[in-house]
């Protein structure tokens, strides 16, 4: 007899993170086109202020609520396998974050130094860099969690 297996706490956390990110991206593009249209600016000029919509990603902190599952009768919320899944996903997320972070740091420096011959990097770029890295980390971690659950799923039978 087939039945549906309820989502594990980690899966719910991953889906929550991805939905928040999708909402942030949608809000960004809506704001981008609105700013460009309303203030008669080009898309390139409107792109920077529209980035404020990614502040929605601050809701990721609420995702930890999903790690507590009252319906689960088990004594723990993350058993050994789920702890391994979380650890692997976190490793992937941090690795990707580091690659993107270093690439952007060196890439921007190289571009500004050798192409634009500019001695300084705009100070507003620094928090942007960290925030972008965080987005990469969270999204990669969430996808890695869902992929691992999908790979280890078997027949959903009682």
């Amino acid at each position, binding site marked *: 007899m087939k039945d549906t*297996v*309820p989502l*594990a706490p980690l899966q719910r956390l991953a889906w929550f993170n991805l939905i928040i990110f999708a909402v942030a991206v949608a809000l960004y593009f809506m704001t981008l086109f609105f700013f460009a249209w309303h203030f008669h600016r080009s898309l390139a000029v409107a792109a920077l202020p529209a980035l404020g919509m990614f502040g929605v990603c601050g809701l990721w902190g609420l995702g930890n609520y999903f790690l507590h599952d009252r319906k*689960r*009768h*088990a*004594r*723990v919320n993350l*058993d*050994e*396998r*789920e702890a391994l899944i979380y650890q692997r996903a976190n490793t992937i997320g941090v690795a990707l974050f580091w690659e993107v972070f270093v690439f952007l740091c060196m890439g921007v420096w190289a571009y500004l130094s050798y192409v634009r011959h500019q001695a300084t990097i705009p100070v507003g770029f620094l928090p942007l860099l960290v925030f972008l890295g965080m987005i990469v980390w969270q999204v990669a971690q969430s996808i890695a969690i869902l992929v691992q*659950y999908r*790979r*280890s*799923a*078997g*027949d*959903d*039978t*009682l």
Partner: protein
Amino acid sequence: MTPSESAQLKNRIRRLRFDHGEMTQQELADRVGAARQTIIALEAGKYAPSLLLAFRLAKAFGVTTEDVFQWDGD
């Protein structure tokens, strides 16, 4: 666990569940302190449990670990 290693480690968890009053996956998960998804992964041969979980599973069925898990490796 690599695919070749997972093929070598077999278990009779599903059979033992049915032999013990048609225990559900959720009931077994509750008894051994694991998630139902972990029991599913175990039965599908996609996860090798820790020693502690293996012993808990054996105790839940009242059998030895060798009765639950079989290894065909070298």
